[in-house]
Every structure is written in structure tokens, then in C-alpha cells.
């Protein structure tokens, strides 16, 4: 074989392998979605949204778990995102190049990919051990810690995207930095910050590991934030590993609900961001 033919062959082989890799990735995504859809829809019924989690073999739904997940996710975002947004503001506006900011940025990136089970253990150690019992509010606290790095990162990035001229104009009118940030920069970066919130919700609503030792689970309807609360991921975990057919069906229904929620959130975040970028492009 000539040298040229060998080079061309090698090129073709590797490019082919790269296509195989891409196809494999897409097939995995399709396989997961397909299983979720087919088994999730099979387990879906009106009672999923209207009844409590059943005993083995009995009739029931996921209402208490859906409610619990919603409550803890909302609480987690309410606690975590203001901290994330404020910290992101500090990094972008006040302490852009200080040594402290460099350290915080680095630590935040580490927290962003730190295993969530570690965060669960941390909250267990500092709160549950002292309280002596599991509760929904502690679960929300663990989720809040996971939401902080996501909102911090997007807030900082989005504030950095605001044209500096806007900030300078506000400062030239004699506004203090806080006035500029609250009245000019936040509105300008609004859709970007909302994107961060959506991503944070998507991140924490499917988390299971940190809830294992904080919110635990609850077979019954409970609105008491100071008591263990049912939540979708824990119910899926418990029901999927059980030998009972009706529990497994509900686990698949729950898995479908969570995945659809998260995919809708991630796609909206993406669309919002794309709109933002075309806006910017148009303005220039």
C-alpha cells in the first residue's frame, strides 16, 4: 500500500470511529428516554397525582412525594439562590480581581462538581446530629448548599456580559455601586440570572443522595417542615429496589415525572440564553 493510501485509510478509520462514538452516545440517550417513556407511561394514571404512596400491593399514587419534592426544591432555591446571587455579585462587581475572589471562584468550581452525598453528610453532621431527627427543612438546606455554586457561577458570568457603558453611565449620574447593581445591572442581566435559577432547580430537583440523611422519607401525607417528608427521588429509590410490581410501576412513573421536569427546565434555560444572545447580537 502506498504511503498516501495508508494515510487516507488511517484517516477514514478514525473518522469512522468518531462517528461510531457519537452514535453510541445518542443511542444511549434514546434508549434511556425510550425506557422511561414506555415504562413511565405504563405506570402513569390519574391516581399518581391524587393519591398517597401505597403499601406493597395496594392502590396509590405519588402525591405526597411530588408535594414533598416541590416544597423542598422551592425552599432550597429560596435559601440558596440569594446567597449565590449575592456572592456572584461580589465576584463580578466588588472584588473582581482580589485574592479572595480568585480563591472563592476556585472553591466554587470545586463545589460545583463535588459529590452531593458529601454535602448530605455535611448537613447531617452539623444539623441532624444536633436536632436529633430528620426533617424536610434540613433536606431543603442540603439542596440549598447544592444550589449556591450554580447560581453563583451564572450570576457572575451574566453580570460580566452587561456592557460596561451601562455601568459607567449610572456611575456618572452619581449613583452608588449598589444602586447601579440593583437598578441597572440586575435588570440588564435578568434573563441570564433566571437561567441560573432554572439550572439550579434542575440540578437539585433530582438529587437523591443528600436527602438520604436529611429529609429521609415518609410514607404518608405531611406538611410539617420539621418532620421527615416524602420526596420523589427517595420514593423511586425505595420502590424500584422493592420486589413489588405496583411499587416498581410507581417508581417508573416517578422517574418519568422527574426527568420530564428536568429536561423542560434545562431546555427552557437554554432557550432563554439563546434569546438573550440574539438580543445582544441585535443591539450591536
Amino acid at each position: 500500500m502506498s504511503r498516501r493510501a495508508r494515510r487516507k485509510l488511517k484517516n477514514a478509520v478514525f473518522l469512522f470511529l468518531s462517528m461510531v462514538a457519537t452514535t453510541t452516545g445518542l443511542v444511549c440517550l434514546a434508549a434511556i428516554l425510550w425506557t422511561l417513556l414506555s415504562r413511565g407511561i405504563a405506570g402513569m394514571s390519574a391516581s399518581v397525582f391524587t393519591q398517597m404512596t401505597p403499601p406493597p400491593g395496594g392502590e396509590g399514587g405519588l402525591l405526597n412525594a411530588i408535594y414533598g419534592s416541590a416544597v423542598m426544591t422551592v425552599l432550597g432555591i429560596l435559601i440558596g439562590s440569594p446567597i449565590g446571587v449575592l456572592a456572584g455579585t461580589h465576584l463580578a462587581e466588588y472584588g473582581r480581581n482580589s485574592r479572595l475572589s480568585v480563591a472563592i471562584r476556585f472553591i466554587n468550581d470545586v463545589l460545583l462538581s463535588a459529590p452531593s452525598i458529601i454535602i448530605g453528610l455535611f448537613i447531617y453532621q452539623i444539623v441532624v446530629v444536633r436536632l436529633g431527627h430528620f426533617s424536610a427543612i434540613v433536606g431543603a438546606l442540603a439542596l440549598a448548599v447544592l444550589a449556591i455554586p450554580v447560581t453563583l457561577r451564572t450570576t457572575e458570568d451574566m453580570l460580566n456580559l452587561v456592557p460596561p457603558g451601562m455601568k459607567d453611565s449610572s456611575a456618572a449620574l452619581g449613583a452608588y455601586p449598589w444602586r447601579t447593581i440593583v437598578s441597572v445591572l440586575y435588570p440588564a442581566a435578568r434573563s441570564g440570572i433566571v437561567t441560573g435559577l432554572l439550572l439550579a432547580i434542575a440540578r437539585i430537583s433530582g438529587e437523591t443522595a443528600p436527602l438520604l440523611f436529611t429529609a429521609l422519607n415518609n410514607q404518608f401525607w405531611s406538611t410539617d417542615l420539621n418532620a421527615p417528608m416524602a420526596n420523589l427521588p427517595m420514593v423511586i429509590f425505595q420502590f424500584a429496589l422493592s420486589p413489588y410490581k405496583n411499587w416498581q410501576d410507581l417508581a417508573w412513573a416517578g422517574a418519568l415525572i422527574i426527568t420530564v421536569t428536568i429536561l423542560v427546565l434545562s431546555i427552557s434555560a437554554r432557550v432563554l440564553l439563546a434569546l438573550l444572545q440574539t438580543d445582544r447580537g441585535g443591539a450591536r
Partner: protein
Amino acid sequence: MAIIDSRHAAKQLILERIFRSATLSAAILVLLILGGVAISLLHGAWPALSHFGFSFVTREIWNPVTDEFGALAAIYGTVVTSAIAMLLAVPAGFGIALFLTELCPPLLKRPIGVAVELLAAVPSIIFGIWGLFVLAPVLQRHVQPWLIHHVGPVPGLGHLFKGPPFGIGVLTAGVVLAIMVLPFIAATMRDVFDTVPAMLKESGYGLGATTWEVIWNVVVPHSRVGIVGGMMLGLGRALGETMAVTFVIGNAHRISSSILAPGTTISSSIANEFTEAVGALYTSSLIALGLLLFLITFTVIAAAQAMLHRLERRAGVAI
């Protein structure tokens, strides 16, 4: 001429101070969280660490009845499952990144890129339930018997594929992990490949190089640091991944030479046993496992971040 209202100005100044210190305290809280994680885990792990000493990480035994605990089986399982995941996901992620940056028709570039990123958004418990009900039976019926039959008799390598096809076990956990970290690796590598200046690539093509030659001799050397950073970010995820692994690993505290056998990892041991652990020493040993995991993942992720930041700075200067 504006009249300066001194009271208004004073109020503004106070609000400025309040707002400024609020943002600063929020930022410092992030530092405190990481410090708090380290201190609280060390505090919780202390009884076990002082009781077992260094032998905690060198012993395989894990016996709640006699209160004897060693982390070796869990460490081994964590390392082996992550190694399998990296072995499968790194070449695949490289291939996807290559396809997206060099081969993909522009029309498909965004949809495929988004699809890969959506795979990253799927929560780990979904991968777990899918791995248990779909992937494990497929591996048990088709892949594992083939491995046992064909690779099992090979001297040396064969030890990895001995025993009955359980379906669940170390290999299955590794495969699920590979699918989970694939999107992270692919997305990071794609972003890194995108930072290679077009002029460098065009120069390669201009000299008559094939696409593969440009990738291997221009793109890869230029983005070496980023590729390693992306791999380590994926590794960090794989090491700490909990729920997906808990479903499919089989939770057996022992070290088998065969990767088809059930095993355990640090995170799946904690997830499985923590709420059922009775006795201070048992709980403390599980927290000590958590501390080990924290130290391992912190090192890996910090190294990955340092590498990616270096690349970012370099890219910033180049532009």
C-alpha cells in the same frame, strides 16, 4: 445646579455599606461551606480513625456485628469502577468532541451538542433505575457470557472475567458510570477543541494533512492541558457518583479479582448503610469513608480546575 441633599447621600452611603457587606458575606460563606465540610467530616470520622488508625484504609474487613471496619474494599471498588468508566468514556468522549468540532454538518452541530448536554442533566437516580432494569439484564444475557467464554481462558487477563454472570456488579457499575460521565467529557473536550485557533488548523490542511493528522498533530497537542482537565473533571464525577452505582453494584464488601462479581464503592456504602447503621463506631466509620471520598474527589477536581483555568488564561491571552 443640583442641590445636594446630605441626608439622602448619607442614606445612600449606609445602603451601599449594607449591600456591599451582604455580597461579601455571601461570598465568604462559600469558603466557609468548604471549610465546614472538611471540619465536620473530620470531626465525625475521628472516633473511627482514632480507633482503627491507619489500618482503616488497608483492611478489607467490614463487619458491623463485631464492629470491625476497613475501607479497602470500598476504595478498591471506587477506583475500579471509575477506571472502567474512564476507559470507556474517554475514547468515546474524544470521538464525540472530534465529530462535533471537525466532522459534523453545521445543521446537526447544535442539536447533537444539545442532546449530549441533556444527557448530562438527567439525574443519577434515573441512570440507576435504567441500569438495574435495562442494562444489567442485557449485560447478563449477552455481554458477560461472551466475556467469560472468550476472554476468561486468556492467561492473566482472564482473571478479570471469571465466575457466573450476575448482571449487577463492578463491570455494570463501570458501564453506567461511563454513560454518565460521557457528556461531561465530550462537552469539555469540545469546548477545548474550539479554542484551537482556526489558522493553526488551516495551516495543517494547507500542508496537505488529512483531517485525522490535523487533529492528532495540531489540535490535540494544542489542547493537551484542557483534554486532561476534562478527563479529570469526568473522573471526579465518576468517583463521587452515588445513586446510579448503588443500584447496580450489588453492595458486597469484598475484593474479587473478577470485575463481573458484586462489589461496593465508598459512596454506595454510605448511601446503603448510613440510615441503618447502629452504634457510634459504625456511623463514624461511614463518615470516615465520606472523608476519604472528599479528599480523593477534592484533589482530582481541584487539579482539573487548575488545568482548565490555565487553559482559559492562555486562550484569553492568545485572543
